């Protein structure tokens, strides 16, 4: 990154945590052997894997044997959904999920429906918060095998009422799966879930490592071809150096999480306030209070999202967008759609441990001019 470039897309991938880099390099030396074999190199690899699992489990507050390392957050989400449904197929074939789940969860739901199952999507309100009444009705209906709720929206940051949603599930004995990719390593985890997934590159670990936790007593059946590794929950050999780096950086990120949240939260507030005040015709979306500490999303009326991303990139700002013109499917973000908020001209800004106040100030100083310039080019000023 050049000195003038400001990376603001941690919700996609946070820059590698220094602890991750250190652990990764050490484990490349020391952890290349197959931990399943019976020679000394393998025993060393096994020790590293066991220690990584122990550390990550401790951070999540689960038992080590409840936790598996997968090849991504996406794979973990697929396993969580399909395995949770398979394990409870006798109870029914319905998956209840929020309308704002990550595409990994929705694609697993599509697979379930294609195989004859049912998926029931529960709406959210204008700030992207789960409709608990609708959730309760859906979960209490007959034939529900699994319920899935993201802990906090990856697109707009709104924290979901997981404890309340879990209480409903508990009442009727439906296991709750939480996609905690945006929460793990940043904010305390909610209680009441049976299955959890997360993704290492969201907290500063390397890409290509996911976490899948299945609490004891949860009916979960692997949807994959048989493989005894990782507790039988995910097939294939683990990328051990990356797993070691993921676990080490998770511990470091979790230890700093409260302080980082305290530092980043006011910066997000500043972005919310200043963007709303200084960019005309902008909609800052998501819950202003019950939100992740590091993520904010807004939409600029009459501005093309892709053009805006490119203009920001030219000025050195890396951000993400939920606008349809920026997606390969050319559909607007299903999250913005479910909330009923403006989907074009959309920008998601997400901060991380290297983000400074001056980064944010520079972004805030340049954004109004960039948006005004694009509106002038498009001839939409004054509309």
């Amino acid at each position, binding site marked *: 990154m050049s000195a003038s470039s400001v990376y603001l897309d941690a919700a996609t991938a946070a820059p590698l945590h220094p602890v991750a880099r250190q652990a990764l390099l050490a484990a490349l030396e020391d952890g290349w052997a197959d931990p399943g074999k019976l020679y000394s190199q393998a025993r060393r690899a096994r020790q590293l894997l066991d220690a990584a699992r122990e550390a990550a489990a401790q951070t999540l507050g689960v038992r080590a044997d409840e936790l598996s390392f997968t090849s991504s957050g996406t794979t973990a989400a697929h396993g969580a959904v399909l395995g949770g449904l398979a394990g409870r197929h006798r109870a029914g074939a319905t998956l209840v999920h929020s309308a704002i789940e990550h595409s990994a969860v929705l694609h697993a739901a599509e697979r379930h429906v294609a195989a004859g199952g049912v998926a029931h999507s529960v709406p959210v309100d204008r700030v992207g918060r789960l409709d608990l009444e609708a959730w309760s009705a859906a979960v209490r209906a007959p034939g529900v095998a699994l319920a899935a709720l993201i802990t906090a929206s990856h697109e707009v940051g709104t924290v979901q009422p997981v404890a309340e949603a879990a209480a409903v599930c508990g009442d009727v004995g439906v296991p709750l799966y939480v996609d905690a990719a945006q929460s793990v390593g940043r904010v305390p985890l909610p209680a009441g879930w049976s299955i959890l997934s997360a993704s290492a590159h969201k907290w500063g670990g390397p890409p290509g490592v996911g976490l899948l936790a299945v609490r004891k007593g949860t009916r979960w059946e692997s949807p994959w071809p048989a493989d005894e590794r990782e507790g039988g929950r995910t097939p294939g050999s683990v990328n051990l150096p990356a797993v070691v780096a993921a676990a080490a950086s998770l511990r470091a990120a979790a230890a700093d999480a409260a302080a980082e949240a305290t530092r980043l939260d006011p910066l997000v507030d500043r972005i919310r306030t200043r963007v709303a005040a200084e960019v005309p015709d902008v909609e800052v979306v998501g819950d202003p209070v019950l939100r992740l500490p590091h993520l904010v999303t807004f939409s600029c009326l009459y501005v093309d999202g892709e053009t805006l991303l490119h203009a920001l990139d030219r000025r050195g700002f890396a951000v993400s967008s939920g606008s349809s013109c920026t997606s390969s499917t050319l559909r*607007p973000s299903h999250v913005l759609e479910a909330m009923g908020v403006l*989907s*074009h001209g959309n920008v998601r800004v997400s901060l991380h441990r290297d983000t400074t106040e001056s980064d944010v100030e520079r972004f805030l100083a340049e954004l109004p001019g960039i948006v005004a310039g694009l509106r002038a080019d498009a001839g939409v000023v004054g*509309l």
Partner: protein
Amino acid sequence: MPDEVLDCRGQRCPLPVIAAARRMPQVPVGTVVRVLADDPAAAVDLPAWCRMRGQEFLAAITGPDGPAYDIRRTH
């Protein structure tokens, strides 16, 4: 029934919204404009625009001309 039709078929986001924003101030208050727009983002963005601008979003319809959105100028 709409008073007039604004054909934005084939236009990508945010062009249908811009077209509606240009047209609405030119029609008398009370006029219902039907926006034909096949871009999927229009289904989200036309109601959002109405909310932001205080115009009335009446309905989304799928007719012989594809997806359509009725908007009434209220002020």
